[in-house]
């Protein structure tokens, strides 16, 4: 059982402003003390949902496929022993990946196809890279990047286990990679920036977030992610699509980053359809007003779906022009 920490008063106040409704706020903090159902994603590069379900049911596991359009997503209803999910032969052979359902949403929104050239800028541990490779049928190319050598090792191990053959793993700081790719004129038609963040949406799995959280941290991540998202957007082809996502709720790390892109680049925010309860991006925060299209961005709160919290925005690049050049 993980220890629970009390949220700092400043975080409570911010969530009150974001959620407004008292019952909603109560639910948000209540569910933060609990754990959600475990979930897996069938690795369709190696097996089918039907085959895997049969094998797992033979172990006596109770399973649920919550979305008919995404049969590869499975919730584990049975109470398993700690670590049991990662110890099966099926896991060892790469037939499934243990992944929180909301963390599957960025790739569902990005819709990788066989001929796509994709950049996954902050890729480790590889949950979204392996999902993208499966969606693309190991075709096209994914450049999966991370900085830390230990995280690269985890990314590499997961890609091997899942039989991913279309991916190139690079080790660079995100901005440095974007600059290097720009210099050699490599462009992508799809990009995922699953940005480093304060992790407010991941509180059920990482309770220490409440201890480490500070408003300064939100500003630092926000400033860094504006640069990261901008540099990534420069690598996107015209009509290419980029998903910017975080597992946090702070507008500094989410809407403010998107607003920065809207103000500086020739882009359009796209609608996203996800199989979860979602809420619109917000149109103002403190003294800042955001573009009307921010409503197309998606906020996922953990108490709405009994899952992790997330933010996603899908951006289409209309041209290489920057706003001041128009």
């Amino acid at each position: 059982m993980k220890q629970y920490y009390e949220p700092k008063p400043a975080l409570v106040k911010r969530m009150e402003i974001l959620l407004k409704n008292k019952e909603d706020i109560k639910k948000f903090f209540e569910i933060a003390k609990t754990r959600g159902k475990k979930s897996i994603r069938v690795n369709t590069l190696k097996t089918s949902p039907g085959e895997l379900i049969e094998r797992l049911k033979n172990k006596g596991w109770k399973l649920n496929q919550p979305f008919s359009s995404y049969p590869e997503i499975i919730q584990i209803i049975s109470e398993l022993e700690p670590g049991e999910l990662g110890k099966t032969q099926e896991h060892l052979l790469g037939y499934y990946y243990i992944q929180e359902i909301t963390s599957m949403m960025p790739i569902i929104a990005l819709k990788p196809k066989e001929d796509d050239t994709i950049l996954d800028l902050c890729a480790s541990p590889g949950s979204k890279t392996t999902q993208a490779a499966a969606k693309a049928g190991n075709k096209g190319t994914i450049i999966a990047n991370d900085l830390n050598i230990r995280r690269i090792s985890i990314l590499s191990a997961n890609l091997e286990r899942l039989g991913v053959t279309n991916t190139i793993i690079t080790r660079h700081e995100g901005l440095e990679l974007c600059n290097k790719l720009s210099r050699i004129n490599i462009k992508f038609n799809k990009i995922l920036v699953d940005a480093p963040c304060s992790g407010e949406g991941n509180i059920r799995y990482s309770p220490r977030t409440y201890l480490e959280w500070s408003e300064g941290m939100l500003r630092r991540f926000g400033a860094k992610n504006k640069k990261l998202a901008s540099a990534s957007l420069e690598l996107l082809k015209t009509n290419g699509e980029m998903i910017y996502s975080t597992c946090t709720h702070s507008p500094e790390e989410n809407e403010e980053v998107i607003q920065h892109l809207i103000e500086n680049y020739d882009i359009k925010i796209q609608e996203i359809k996800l199989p979860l309860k979602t809420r619109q991006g917000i149109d103002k925060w403190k003294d800042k007003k955001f573009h009307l299209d921010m409503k197309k961005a998606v906020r996922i709160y953990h108490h709405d779906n009994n899952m992790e919290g997330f933010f996603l925005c899908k951006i289409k690049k209309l041209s290489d022009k920057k706003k001041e050049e128009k």
Partner: protein
Amino acid sequence: MKPLNNPDKKKIISQLEKQFGIKKIPYLILKFGKEKLRIYSGNLSKQELYNLDNNLRIENIGLYSAKWEQDEIRLTLDGVQLFKNQINKNIFELDDNQSNEWLKGNDLDIKVERSWKILKHNNELIGCGKSTGEKISNFVPKERRIK
């Protein structure tokens, strides 16, 4: 990182066919170091890969699938999985107990002729081991073993 040219690729496929019955690899084969062979199924050309390799810090490309060992080829666990629909030679069937020991990372006390063996259990190919005539040596990576 060195993409293999056609003669080298043919040599690899010929050896894979001789050992395991694998006849086709419709992908690029890349050599990392002296022995490691990785398979890349993506849409970048050799020239584009060289361009990336010259400009970026590349850790890996594609899947580590096989290793040259003294003029023979050992398939990795993931290489066995990748070619499972083509492998039809040197398959050795394990019982439940042997399979369990194999997946725990243990050598198997089985006396069969000396050669590389693809290990099968319940219609599943679960690795590639070297039969010395006295035992089958285990190559399941430590982090992939069942504890």
